[in-house]
């Protein structure tokens, strides 16, 4: 498995925007529309890269650095993220802490960029983002902690390598609850319904979109691409757990994981079609509820 380290980052870098395409296509299908082409997110990124930028009068260098730092931190995270049973490029004890730290760094950069505009709307989005993130971070840690307790190692690649069908049989309720937590985090962290609506057009109700209102040109391209990457990364934490195909054959394992990602994207699309958004005050309950599920899972495994 050692020599397949490039699989996870390459797949993520190439296929992440496709995930968004599948989500949008699913939503359109359920609503009876034809929908945008599957590759539309790629065209969006490419188009933004070709444009110049417009900057707000108040902005400083922090505004320009935000999208760059965000993208770089997520890209570095790809080095330690396994893809299903395929090992990551780097694996060391405690690499999950590094992953959580990189997520936090990217978010901090985007939040500061939003505050740099001096716009009230973006301040509002930044405030909501840090609020939900402060709750989502413990939720992610509890979920990872439970997996660590189940597998007995604390590095992402061995943890995911150890999740086999036998592990599922051994700790079914625990792993199922953790999977639910990951799914909720996938929705929370990636501006999906029922937490945030990526297609909304009312600034007062947005979270992530309102933070990036004033970004344009290459900066916006970076933000869109980084958003796709983040969705891919959190998604692969979920898929690696629920698709326990660990044959040792990279084609089989990778193929299963890719299929899992596609199914996840369809599922997210279905959730978006079937649910309405929560009111903002209910979102914290949603996240804390997800964290509680994993805490319960942990206790279930202990007794």
């Amino acid at each position, binding site marked *: 498995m050692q020599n397949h380290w490039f699989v996870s980052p390459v797949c993520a870098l190439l296929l992440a925007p496709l995930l968004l395409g599948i989500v949008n296509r699913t939503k359109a299908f359920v609503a009876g529309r034809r929908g945008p082409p599957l590759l539309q997110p790629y065209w969006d990124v490419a188009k933004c*890269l*070709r444009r*110049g*930028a*417009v*900057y*707000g*009068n*108040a902005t*400083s260098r*922090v505004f320009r*650095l935000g999208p*760059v730092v965000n993208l*770089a*931190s997520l*890209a*570095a995270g790809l080095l330690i993220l396994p893809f299903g049973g395929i090992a990551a490029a*780097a694996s*060391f*004890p*405690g*690499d999950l802490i*590094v992953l*959580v*730290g990189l997520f*936090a*760094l990217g978010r*901090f950069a985007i*939040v*500061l960029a939003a*505050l740099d505009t*001096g*716009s*009230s*709307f973006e*301040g*509002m989005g*930044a*405030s909501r983002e*840090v609020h939900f*993130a*402060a709750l*989502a*971070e*413990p939720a*992610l*840690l*509890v979920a990872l*902690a439970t997996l660590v*307790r189940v597998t007995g190692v*604390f590095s992402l690649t061995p943890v995911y390598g150890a999740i086999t069908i036998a592990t599922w049989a051994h700790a079914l309720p625990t792993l199922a609850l953790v999977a639910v937590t990951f799914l909720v985090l996938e929705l929370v962290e990636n501006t999906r319904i029922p937490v945030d609506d990526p297609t909304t057009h009312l*600034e007062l109700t947005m979270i992530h979109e309102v933070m990036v*209102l*004033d970004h344009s*040109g*290459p900066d916006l391209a*970076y933000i869109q691409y980084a958003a796709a990457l983040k969705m891919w990364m959190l998604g692969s934490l979920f898929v690696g757990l629920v698709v326990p195909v660990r044959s040792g054959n990279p084609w089989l394992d990778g193929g299963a994981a890719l299929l899992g990602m596609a199914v996840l994207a369809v599922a997210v699309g279905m959730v978006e079609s079937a649910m309405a958004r929560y009111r*903002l005050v209910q979102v914290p309950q949603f996240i804390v509820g997800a964290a509680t599920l994993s805490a319960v899972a*942990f206790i279930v495994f*202990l007794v």
Partner: protein
Amino acid sequence: MLSLALLFLGGLIAIVFRRRVGLAQSFGQIGAISGSALGLFAAIRVLIDGGVQQVSAAWPMPGGGLHLQVDALSAFFLLPVFGLSVVTGVYGRSYLAGRGEGSAATWFHLNLLTAAMALVITAHDGLLFLLAWEIMALSPFFLVIFDDRTASVRHAAWTYLAATHLGTVFLLVLFVLVGGLAGTSDFSGYAAVLRDNPALSSAVFLLAVAGFGSKAGIVPAHVWLPEAHPVAPSHASALMSGAMIKVGIYGLLRILTLLGPPPTWWGWLLIAIGASTGVVGILYAVAQHDLKRLLAYSSVENIGIILLGIGVGLLGLAEGTVTLAVIGFAAGLLHVLNHAMFKGLLFLGAGAVQHAAHSLELDRLGGLLKRMPWTGAAFLIGAAAIVGLPPLNGFVGEYLLFYAGFFGLVQAPVNVGVAGLIVLVAMGLISGLAAACFAKAFGIVFLGTARSREAEEAHESPGPMRWAVAILALLCVAIGAAAPLAVSALAGVVATATGLPPAGVRASLASVANPLGAAVVVFAVMVVVAALVWALRAWRLRRMGIRRAPVWGCGFQQPTSRMQYTASSFAQPLTTQFRLFVRNREILIPPSGYFPAASSYASDSGDPFLRLLFAPSFRWFSRVISRMNVVQPGHIHVYVLYLAATLVALLIWASL
């Protein structure tokens, strides 16, 4: 060598006594910098050589001895004390310029504080320790009361004095108790009585947690920090927050080295105190409107993180899990050093803001990054470091603690596993809230547009103040980049603090230093990617051009800077969610009618512990005490009578 440094410091302090001389500033500064630099080198040499330096001298007073000792633990805690003292020495002169004769007194007390802290850390004798402790506790009072014409400042100073003496009471009991049993006031004698006496050890442990904890600022004894830090001169706040509260941690660790083997519940107690102190501290920090109050509450949070590390370490010792013990202690110790760097930096930065914009009220600042690029950039590094973001030093300390949490998870004993989970959840919540807090602090103060005329006319601070923050910012980056080295270097200190064999400690630290090396490589890749992405962006924009325009205002064309999101609105969702703990008082007069006239909103983030716990109990106390006034009529002849009566009573007692 060490006493030389101390004497040097002490001698130069005396020079500062020459108040009225205009040279007082220079002498104070030279004394602080040279004395501390010398002390710093001495401490580093002890750390590198790994030996123990001792100085003993005759002591003219009864019941104690002048016995100083510097082992690795002392030397380690001397680093933040002397290091910050050097930096604040560089900073202080420009900061105090134009403050008149008060500045000489400030220098005197600042240097006295440094010397007293060094003495506390090196003292190897109970009486000497208490004496130095009292000097260390008193000199900040005079720093806090710097601006003594304002009522709120005097109030803050009294709060500090009351809080610090409440803590000292516990220490007095501790040292009298142990000293009485041991028959000596020398620490070596203490260890002899305590080693084999679990009950006494536990009692001493509790007294130490209460006494040293109140100095360090554990909840609910934290109330003096947010009162005292904002009103002291900023470099004094930096020294108090970066170094003085750590002396409380030192005291706790020193006592721990004297005690017998820890039972499990010691670890649990510290984990509980650490977690609650951390979460409560950062929640209050999020709610603050005043930059230095916010920083003071964040110090409370960081003390919580340090105690969490020590608690995990104690649990590891009690359970016999050496690696857990080593990593827990290492996390706590490294965070002591890191916090001194970034909190010192942030307080000095806040001082620069106050110097430039004449306000610390978050909602009167804004847009300062463009006017103060150096201070702003350093403040950003400090903010990112304190949040624990990679690749800075804050991340390294928190990595160790998270690592300890995960390491605990995979251990067989259920209680260690649960402790690991608690550490992870508490640290996750703390770091998430810290991100919110410092996004707010940096974002509202330095980004956006100015919210007041003073902020608009702000200017970059003078050279030495910039250098001071730049040095600390560089240190934050350097420790982050050299993370594995920094962690391995802790071996001697951790071995002294835990009493474990050095070889085992080194092996355990290597088990976490090696992964950190890999993490540093990941961060290096990140920096390279960022550079590439930045270059791509610059290349595209050179071809396509940049335009400037007003930000999107939803169609509104005349936005003013006062329409920006404010500090309170930024924090409102969090304070509302955690209203159980954060009791913001809000006064709202909503607009009403078709043509609304005046409407207003005010919120006040007072400390419920001060309001609901301490204020009532102190009122009760003062009612009781005031009854005693009867015996104090204020006539000298009555007091003379008391003296005579006491003498007679003593004589009778002696003759019995």
